[in-house]
């Protein structure tokens, strides 16, 4: 059974069907891209995976070590606990908090000490907070952010904010990482950098990654498989080369005129 299996997933808002009958399977360790024009329903799909929206119909099943869990309709925090973490299209960091706090908040779900320890600062509190801090800094190191740990997130340059968001998502110890347009707003250099980082964390954390992206250079380069969404429907799936050659895709996404040119 695949790690994540999505079956006939549909979401409509009022009369508008944003995601319609989408079926996809993600195997453990894969790096899969989802592309499609703006408004095609990609982010809605992510919001369905992560519990922000409840599906109108269909199912999302996660196989965590043989135990199959239905994610559809779960609250976002339960989805995260189940092992799905995400970043957002329009960066949703805790802007007025420090870089370190951003990561530490994501680690909260694994905290062991209880409320009394928080109030009265028993030794448990100190020990755990210390190791939490170390772990957070280790993670920040990976993204070359540890020297900025006390800066407010909003004061980071754009590219670093994107990195921090990924670091924060990793702090929840996910099995699957969902990246919503991670390269948006980055210049080619930064994008190239990001491409490497994504590859690297995938190895390092043994992650399965699902990403939405417009930047074709990134998608085509690192994704093993690509799903193409248009108008809420899945119109194609396959290896990058196949997608590039797919007529439907060219028509919907890349624009017909150019393919003729």
């Amino acid at each position, binding site marked *: 059974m695949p790690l994540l299996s999505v079956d006939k997933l549909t979401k409509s*808002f009022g009369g508008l069907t944003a995601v319609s009958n989408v079926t996809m399977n993600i195997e453990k360790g894969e790096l899969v891209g989802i592309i499609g024009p703006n408004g095609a329903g990609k*982010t809605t799909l992510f*919001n369905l995976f992560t519990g*922000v929206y409840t599906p109108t119909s269909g199912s999302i099943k996660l196989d965590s070590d043989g135990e199959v869990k239905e994610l559809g309709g779960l609250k976002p925090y339960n989805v995260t606990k189940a092992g799905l973490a995400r970043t*957002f299209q329009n960066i949703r960091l805790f802007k007025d908090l420090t870089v370190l706090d951003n990561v530490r908040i994501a680690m909260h779900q694994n905290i062991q000490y209880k409320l009394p320890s928080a109030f009265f600062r028993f030794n448990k509190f100190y020990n755990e907070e210390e190791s939490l801090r170390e772990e957070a800094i280790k993670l920040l190191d990976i993204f070359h952010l540890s020297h900025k740990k006390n800066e407010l997130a909003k004061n980071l340059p754009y590219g670093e904010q994107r990195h921090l968001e990924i670091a924060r998502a990793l702090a929840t110890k996910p099995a699957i990482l969902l990246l919503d347009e991670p390269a948006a707003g980055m210049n080619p250099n930064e994008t190239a950098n990001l491409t490497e980082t994504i590859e690297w964390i995938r190895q390092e954390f043994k992650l399965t990654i699902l990403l939405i992206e417009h930047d074709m250079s990134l998608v085509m380069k690192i994704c093993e498989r690509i799903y193409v969404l248009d108008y809420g429907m899945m119109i194609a799936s396959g290896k990058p080369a196949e997608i590039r050659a797919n007529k439907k895709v060219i028509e919907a996404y890349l624009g017909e005129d150019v393919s003729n040119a």
Partner: protein
Amino acid sequence: MEQFLQQVVNGISLGSIYALIALGYTMVYGIINLINFAHGDVYMIGAYIGFAAITYAKLGFFPALVITMILCAILGVVIERVAYKPLRNSTRIAVLITAIGVSLLLEYVMMFFVGAEVRSYPKVLSGEVFHLVGVVINIQQIYIVVTAIALMILLQFIVHKTKIGKAMRAVSVDQDAAQLMGIKVDSTISYTFAIGSAFAGAAGVLVGIYYNSIDPLMGIMPGLKAFIAAVFGGIGSIPGAMIGGLSIGIMETLVSGYGNSMYRDAAVFAFLIIILILKPTGLLGKNTREKV
């Protein structure tokens, strides 16, 4: 049955007043998302302006009503320009505290000038009483309901048929898009305050005449109730404010009439909370979804 009808009549008179105040709340909230706590005090000032117009200028009901509405409109605009506009980009809580400050200011400036003692209203309308199938109806009640309905129709006309009304609706939905239509956001907000305050002023005069008693702190409770009426009806919605006002008025009289009058306010609040939990945007409110 007669008693019930009588209670409904009582409730409608009371509710019309809540509705008039609620309209201002709903309009202001609709356009700048501010609980204008000073709104109830504009209503109080309106009652005093009407009092002065009738007592000292010896005006009749309609001239006094019109003058009150004009002066309250000006007051509303001044409040907006001086106190709220500089805070357009601040946190909502800062604006809310400012609104509370303005509210206290109006109350205590009035108390300073006119004293805390209640005043009775000069008689401009006869208190004649009709009996209709066992239900007692006061001429003043008829005036209240008729004036309230007339003003609400006027408001509906302004909002739906005039340019400024359309500008108000546009600004309340989408300030950026409204600007792209050439609509001046600031002056539209001022108009909104003007109209809302004029309505509160009218309610003040009507209350003065109907209940014959005004004082500087008279705006606090009705202001709160009217806000609840606005929330109940779906804040930002004009028909919602009317329905909300009338519902709260009728509910209050029914709780007093058939239950325990001491739990009247508690019942109103409890009802509001239940409505909010079941339908967080009120009866006619629209759902807005945060973009993720």
